[in-house]
């Protein structure tokens, strides 16, 4: 990995490991011998939560940490602010190595650098929305007047002005999470940690919140580490994505990197599972053929069919509807002018062709510069229909909305 811009790094994580259990040394020894999590658990009863994690968090980026349940996402984010004590490794933020801090320094560090948004909101039920938003500042001993102001500001940012005096229990889930967000924003820490912050919200509200987070993030340029197990979410909000599996990093990169160049099968399956365009097949975008030419047709007949239907190319079939190829209007026209009475020599074979079950995302790559429609044929090469470029785009756009 080459970091081009060292100056912009906010947090540097090196060799971070976490063992849950009473004999971490033993577990790490086995890990160093190349053993994996399940084997270590079986042999020692220790859970290897994280193993030798390296990554950088860049100033102002929105870094997404993704992985299946149990992959160690929460453990990782909680190690950053030491809600969980790391077993070994360094976490350097602005020159301070977090695992080495004394209790007092840790408090200071948490106050200055970190604010957290929780999956289950974790709002204080005995405090009003306003008081909740003030909490981080209250803890830091900021005087009442200025913390009221910051809290109000951040509540406004998340669209909750007017709800200051309500209690969390009076709000919907989406609104509660906005309070959670406001509480983190008001604190004006340098890094925001979000552990599955939107997972408890229903899909529509979740979309809204993602949009809002992206906007906030662009506006405020706040370094954010966001955990999700949802690839769609990761892709739509992340500047970069880190993929975890069994406590190890399997891939790190931009959303495009992950989608187009999955590092291994695990990532590929992850990507596959979520990419909606794969769920749609050629069948769903196929249209019936407006007109076809028969191999026995003469050039003039074919020309008339083409002009009748406004086509500049036409597929040629035989009596059994078996697809023979395609002819272009220019070739047929020339043949007609030359007085030929068959189109057989004109038939070309460089046209796109696919079966009805071909995944949609493959179709897109098939359109060539001549922009012939894709011929959809069955196993016996009989022409079933065609797919035009517009229909594919339409379907992909539809898929993107989910």
């Amino acid at each position, binding site marked *: 990995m080459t970091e081009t811009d060292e100056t912009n790094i906010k947090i540097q994580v090196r060799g971070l490991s976490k063992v849950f259990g009473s004999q971490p040394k033993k577990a790490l020894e086995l890990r160093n011998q190349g053993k994996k999590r399940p084997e270590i658990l079986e042999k020692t009863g220790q859970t290897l939560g994280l193993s030798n994690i390296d990554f950088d968090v860049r100033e102002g980026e929105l870094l997404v940490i993704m992985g299946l349940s149990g992959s160690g996402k929460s453990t990782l984010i909680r190690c950053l602010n030491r809600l969980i004590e790391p077993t070994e490794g360094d976490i350097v933020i602005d020159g301070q190595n977090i695992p080495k801090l004394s209790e007092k320094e840790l408090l200071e560090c*948490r106050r200055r650098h970190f604010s*957290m948004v929780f999956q289950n909101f974790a709002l*204080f039920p005995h405090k009003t929305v306003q008081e909740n938003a003030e909490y981080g500042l209250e803890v830091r001993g900021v005087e009442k007047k200025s913390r009221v102001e910051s809290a109000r500001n951040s509540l406004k940012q998340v669209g909750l002005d007017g709800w200051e005096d309500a209690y969390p229990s009076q709000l919907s889930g989406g609104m509660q999470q906005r309070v959670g967000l406001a509480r983190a924003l008001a604190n004006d820490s340098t890094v925001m940690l979000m552990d599955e912050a939107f997972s408890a919200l229903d899909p529509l509200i979740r979309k809204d919140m993602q949009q809002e987070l992206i906007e906030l993030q662009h506006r405020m340029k706040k370094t954010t580490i966001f955990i999700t197990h949802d690839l769609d979410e990761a892709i739509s909000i992340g500047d970069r994505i880190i993929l975890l599996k069994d406590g190890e990093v399997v891939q790190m990169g931009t959303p495009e990197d992950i989608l187009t160049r999955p590092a291994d099968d695990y990532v590929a399956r992850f990507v596959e599972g979520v990419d909606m365009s794969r769920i749609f097949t050629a069948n769903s975008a196929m249209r019936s053929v407006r007109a076809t030419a028969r191999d026995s047709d003469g050039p003039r007949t074919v020309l008339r069919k083409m002009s009748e239907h406004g086509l500049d190319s036409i597929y040629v079939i035989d009596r059994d509807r078996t697809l023979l190829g395609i002819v272009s209007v220019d070739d047929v026209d020339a043949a007609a002018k030359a007085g030929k009475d068959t189109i057989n020599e004109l038939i070309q074979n460089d046209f796109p062709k696919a079966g009805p079950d071909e995944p949609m995302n493959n179709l897109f790559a098939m359109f060539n510069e001549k922009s012939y429609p894709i011929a959809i044929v069955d196993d016996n090469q009989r022409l079933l229909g065609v797919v035009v470029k517009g229909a594919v785009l339409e379907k992909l756009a539809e898929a993107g909305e989910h």
Partner: protein
Amino acid sequence: MAIDIPRIPLGDGIEGGLDFLTSHYSNVTRGISSVTQTGISALNDGLMWLPEWALMAIIALICWRVANLRLGIGAVLGLALIWNLELWNPMIETLTLVVIATAVAVVIALPFGVLAAISDRFYSVIMPVLDFMQTMPAFVYLIPAIPFFGIGSVSAIFATVIFSMPPAIRFTTLGIRQVPNDLIEAADAFGATRTQKLIKIQFPLSLPTIMAGINQTIMLALSMVVIAAMIGADGLGSEVWRAIQRLRPGDGFEAGIAVVILAMLLDRITQALRKPKKKAS
């Protein structure tokens, strides 16, 4: 061949210890005694100084504000009955003892409860002690109280505090331990100190549970204060005691009913405090 196991002189040991304490710490006990006596007298005189109707009005108003109008009316009727039975002064004396004993018990119980909530080791030490304190027959506490504080109200307070304190400790511990972990985590994540967590998060959130403990403490204190009439505490208990000695069941029941009324009022008021009315609509 009977093996002759000598009787363990448990009682002698305890007596020896108590003797030692009373002889060596008499200054301390006398100090505590006089402070407590002063407190009792002050509160008692204060409550006595108020005309009956005024105190009735105040109590009824409290009932109405914290609970509802029905309890307010109930308080007026109940207190009027006590007044009518000429048990007003003993009732005030009992109330005084209950209030002071409860206040002392709660002040001691809270830090112990908090400590037991925070430290597992302290928890495992104090829980058996609390079991002991609660299962020991109540009037056993009266006996050592006398050499310390002599006959009278101070001894009654001493025994009452010991007897009634356990639920306040238990419920404080329970309440604090019950605060959801994610809230503690949230507080930690924002860099709250232990004290900040305790005062701003754990304590307010466990308040209903702590109030339930205090409610039980008050009930136990009331029952103990009545029993303490045996060592010369004033109040409704001594009315009952006198009735027993003179074989006058009627008087005994009257005093008993007054205790019940007082108990119900104290119980309903503290119950109502437990469930704070939602401030916002």
